[in-house]
């Protein structure tokens, strides 16, 4: 019987590939957009403007303090009530990008705050503009602090992308649900789904570990 289930599972491999493809595409797009947005928000959060900083802070707290499933339902089912119709893919991208941006915003803000005030003062004193100070002096030093947790966050976000199956996107998790209807062995099917996520995430886990080691070493060497 197990053998038959394997045969039947093997027949579902095009569906599995589609699922993995969807998970990867969804994650990739929202991680790229979320990273850009997250850096922007992180820079604004630590910038001089109190109002902007506190609005961003409140939004980040709200998103971090509510379940992702609820956020995605709000975007997909509630927004249409206000006349904003989104297809599932767009809704998934928006929800994941927003989530990524909020977490990355905090990581970037922490990195920026870790740069000693003296560095900013030196840049200020030599007449660098606000953007030049950020670009030439603050961000390169903040990146040392930012990179390891950033890559770690990517892993968490790829796994969070499984929640988009709830609005009908055929990602890896939903493929699991579909297949399990034909092959009634939940343990086997979702074990394989887990393996699929692990294959996508493991290289990033390794990268995060390597970055952490390298940044740690560099910190000792470059410290003032």
């Amino acid at each position, binding site marked *: 019987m197990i053998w038959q289930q394997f045969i039947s599972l093997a027949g579902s491999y095009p569906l599995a590939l589609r699922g993995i493809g969807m998970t990867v595409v969804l994650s990739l797009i929202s991680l790229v957009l979320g990273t850009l947005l997250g850096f922007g928000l992180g820079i604004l959060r630590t910038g001089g403007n109190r109002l902007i900083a506190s609005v961003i802070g409140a939004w980040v707290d709200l998103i971090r303090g509510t379940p992702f499933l609820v956020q995605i339902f709000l975007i997909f089912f509630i927004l249409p009530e206000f006349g904003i119709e989104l297809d599932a893919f767009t809704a998934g991208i928006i929800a994941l990008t927003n989530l990524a941006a909020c977490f990355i915003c905090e990581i970037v803000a922490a990195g920026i705050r870790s740069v*000693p005030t*003296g560095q900013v*003062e*030196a840049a200020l*004193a*030599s*007449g660098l503009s606000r953007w030049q100070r950020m670009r030439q002096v603050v961000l390169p*030093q903040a990146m040392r602090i930012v990179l390891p947790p950033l890559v770690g966050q990517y892993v968490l976000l790829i796994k969070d992308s499984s929640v988009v199956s709830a609005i009908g996107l055929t990602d890896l998790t939903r493929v699991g649900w579909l297949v399990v209807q034909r092959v009634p062995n939940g343990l086997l099917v979702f074990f394989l789904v887990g393996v699929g996520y692990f294959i996508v995430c493991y290289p990033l886990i390794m990268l995060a570990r390597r970055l952490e080691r390298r940044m740690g070493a560099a910190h000792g*060497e*470059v410290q003032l």
Partner: protein
Amino acid sequence: MTKTGMIDFRGVNKWFGALNVLKDITLSVEPREVVVVCGPSGSGKSTLIRCVNGLEAIKDGDLVVDGQRLGDPATNMTQLRTEIGFVFQSFNLYPHKTALENVTLAPIHVRKTPRAEAEKAGRELLAKVGLADKVNAYPAQLSGGQQQRVAIARCLGMRPKIMLFDEPTSALDPEMISEVLDVMVAVAEEGMTMMVVTHEMGFARKVAQRVVFMDAGAIVESGTPDEFFSHPRTDRSRAFLSKILRH
């Protein structure tokens, strides 16, 4: 009120909360003049020079630097800062950039000097402060004295009209102090307008036209180095000098 110096404090006050850190400061520094500011710790001397390039904002009074009034909406602070070099007690070199990159960063990005030209000038400046062989070294690979000399070269790279020094030798091991002071003397002898917060009396005697003694946020005494060190007029300056001379 009639003559204007390079740096003009007129009745400047500043508070940190309830603490009056600068009390009614009036002081004028002429072009090419070297003024040494000394006083016990917490007397406001660092705050005083940090006000000159706007690292600290003044509360009331007037502060005019190079003909521009600080706090005036017409004054472009970023522009004015390019004319003022600032040397920090803790050097504040950019740790991710080499000595040469530290020196050329502002000339390239602020002055828009072509890179090749900026690097040529940067190498010359590093040679001038005795670090021709450290052009490609990172700050972490340099001693404190070397880092501070790079920091001075970094300021000189902008060809400033004024240079401010905030206890430039206080964080240094004793054997490195003179190499930094020698560079500062050379800068002074080229006619730079300088305000230097330091207790290095040898430096003050050699190049300063004036020593200003501060205590509790106010200028208590001011005079030539000779007058001040040999014949201090107030009890507070005598007490201060007896403490720093004991060592």
